[in-house]
């Protein structure tokens, strides 16, 4: 167990260094830079821009810039945003709650609905319900999130006026829990849509694998009620691959949040990432990159641990 951990940690660190170096290089080698947005500011001369570049240290060789950034990172200094000169960690921290709120809500919806639909589909294979669920999942996976989000807003906010047209809470409102929840419904559902499809498909096939195994046949032969068989014997074992899936789905959730947050003017990390990329806010983009990489690594590590806990046959070595 300890050896497994140390090995995993070493692996992760190497990976993080690689991610940071590649990310830094790609970001800085892409033409343009944080100052090109000022190119057409009236009254701002080339000399001004050159001076600002020098003050920001953007005119030094790339390896030097990388080393400076990296050594500061090792000392716990993630740098400051070019846009609002706040420390990167504070910038990320200010956006994290919104994204977590959205992601947790979406995961809950996806897990509950996805797993239920998956089990039903597996138990009643090739039934009308199963066919509908299969078609539904295909449609959900094919719909562009951006379009689906806009349609949701058009139908439920503009036409029916049941839900707000976006934002995390009523602007200038008191910020009651109910208000937050009201604003959360639409974006969480939109973000969850794809995940529901993924989860239901995986759960269905995992459940089918289990149902066809010998021990289930034995349980049936013993005359156990179908409910007990499904919930006690099959369900737990079918859940195992789901834990791994949860770890694997983290990056796609982060990706989905990018689009959903734009459509629903949700002030989260996805938005921040897009904006920072657009402005070439190097410190923040690098910060989010590292943060996401750490998150994904941790997610996978956690999934492996949980698998080991859930399945005594798995030995972590």
């Amino acid at each position, binding site marked *: 167990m300890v050896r497994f951990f140390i090995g995993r940690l070493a692996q992760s660190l190497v990976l993080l260094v690689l991610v940071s170096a590649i990310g830094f290089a790609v970001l800085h080698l892409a033409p343009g830079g944080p100052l090109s947005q*000022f190119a057409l500011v009236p009254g701002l001369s*080339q000399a001004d821009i050159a001076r600002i570049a020098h003050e920001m240290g953007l005119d030094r060789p790339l390896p030097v810039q990388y080393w400076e950034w990296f050594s500061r990172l090792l000392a716990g200094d993630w740098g400051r945003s070019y846009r609002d000169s706040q420390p990167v960690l504070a910038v990320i921290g200010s956006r994290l709650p919104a994204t977590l709120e959205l992601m947790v809500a979406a995961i809950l919806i996806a897990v509950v609905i996805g797993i239920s639909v998956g089990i039903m589909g597996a138990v009643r294979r090739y039934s009308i319900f199963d066919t509908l669920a299969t078609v539904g999942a295909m449609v959900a996976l094919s719909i562009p999130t951006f379009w689906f989000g806009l349609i949701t807003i058009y139908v439920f906010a503009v036409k029916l006026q049941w839900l707000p*047209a976006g934002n995390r809470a009523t602007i200038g409102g008191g910020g009651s829990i109910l208000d937050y929840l009201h604003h959360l419904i639409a974006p969480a559902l939109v973000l969850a849509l794809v995940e529901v499809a993924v989860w239901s498909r995986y759960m269905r096939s995992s459940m089918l694998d289990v149902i066809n195994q010998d021990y289930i046949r034995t349980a049936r032969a013993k005359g156990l009620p179908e409910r007990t068989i499904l919930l006690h014997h099959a369900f737990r074992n079918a859940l195992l691959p789901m834990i791994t899936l949860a770890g694997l789905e983290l990056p796609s959730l982060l990706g989905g949040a990018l689009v959903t947050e734009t459509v629903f003017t949700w*002030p989260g990390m996805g938005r921040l990432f897009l*904006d920072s990329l657009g402005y070439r806010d190097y410190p923040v983009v690098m910060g989010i990159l590292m943060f996401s990489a750490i998150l994904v690594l941790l997610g996978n590590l956690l999934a492996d641990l949980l698998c080991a806990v859930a399945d005594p046959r798995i030995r972590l070595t």
Partner: protein
Amino acid sequence: MTEHSKDKTGLRGASILKPSRRQLLALGASAGFLTWLGPQRGWIDAAHAATPPAKPTGQAIVGLSQEPTVFHPLLVHIEVDEAVYFNLFSALWRVDPKGAFQPDLVAEIPTVENGGISADGLNWRIKLKDNVKWHDGTPFTADDVKFNIELIQNPKFIAGRRAGHELVRDIKIVSPTELTWRMEKAYAPYPAILSWTFLVPKHILEKEADLNKPAFTTSPVGTGPFKWVERVPGDHITLAAHDGYHGDGPYLERLIVKYIPDMTVLYTQFQTGDIDYIGLQGITPDHYEEAKGLADRAVMPVPQPFIENIAVNVGLPVFKDKAVREALYYGMDKKSVIEQIYYGLPSETESFLPKQSWAFNPDLPKHEFDPEKAKKILDEAGWALGSDGVRAKDGVRLEFVNSTTAGNHVREQAQQLLQQNWADIGAKMTINNLPPAVMWGDFWMQSKFESAMVGIGFMIGPDPDATDFFSSRSIGAKGGSGQNTTQFENPEVDGLLAEGAKTVDLEKRKAAYRKMQEVTRAELPYLPIFQYAMVSGVKAKLEGFTPNVNVQENCWNANTWYWAT
């Protein structure tokens, strides 16, 4: 303006509108323009309009498609940031929609007549109001003004703009409400520059350890009508009424600046009433018809000082020949671009100055779309048609690349139209569009482009001085420090620019700039297409909203906004 910042959403060109021909006549003079806007939609305080409340009441939500992030107005920033500056800070004076200066922190605008500026434009005397307080209660004094100018001049400080300020010498404090300075040389645009130089408090900033990353930006203090409450990054900024404000108002209790990243979503939130005013970048043309029909909303095209051009790099062999530029201009179907692609809303122009400018020359030759004439010009200049339909002269083929920011669908359509237009006269244009950060980097600044479709604000605020774009000393590719990216060099223009910038006499300046517009219209370093307009929208009950072509964001006077009851 930063064309660039507008391009971020790729919709810069899409926020362009044009009033009808008849309305355009009224647009000629800003005064007329305001009358035209006024009475019908309650966009101007008409005599019968409601009266403002006795104490600040209610809130207004401003929706913007970019996020203000820089809360120190002297630091380098983009135009969207000014939406906050106008309400949080004050300048010495402001510029009104007619282009006239109105006192803000000063008791009177210094002029040659009142002795505030010497006849040679070198010596200045500024008299300040004596009742101005910073939001924290500290009195505002002449020391603050001196501190601000010196901060901008500080080489270590990442100042947004230094033009003009770097000429100021010997600032002397005469009394808490009076100071004098000397200018290194006369510089006529300086009053205009000061109208958009927002002042920051000395007593807070002098204690900052890092000039360029001051703690001040997390809770800025100004002298403006609203004071800082909070910022939710990526979402909104809340300002509250400053009850000790030295000017009119404020009549609103709260002003909230909301960031909505997507143009379609921005419009939707205007539709649902989540936002009260749709600012930068306004309503896209494809929503204009629908928006006009919305109940309880006032929706209007508002002229902007930016000009859409085809910028041609005259440093290249193919564009060196003036005949080519002339022929391309004759071969450009401007009308179709405006009518078919921009919903018939922006207005044709021949000048680099907006029609509202006091220096605008209305007598420039009118553009005609005449492909036959274009062909004739090229034939006469020796550009012979090749077998592949492309002309050539002395081994130079009449072909070039045109670039703009990728993702701006409207502009891309306009490009395709021109590509067709020019193919008809034997000029081959290839389109190569780039992301904004690339387009406006060295590619643009160092004249590495061949031709570009670009919207530019050539003025310094309300001042027509365009030295930065037309002077032979402003060519970045030749070591200059300006934005003359077309590499246009013309001794006559250089002379006119110098004359216009050094004389304080308005009539002389006007004559110089009018002449200059004649030269640029004849030489065509830029092929002017149209003057921008943005579709602005407010809730009909919001009084006091007045568009202003001389500022960067139309919530410049939110201190006078209030809700009609």
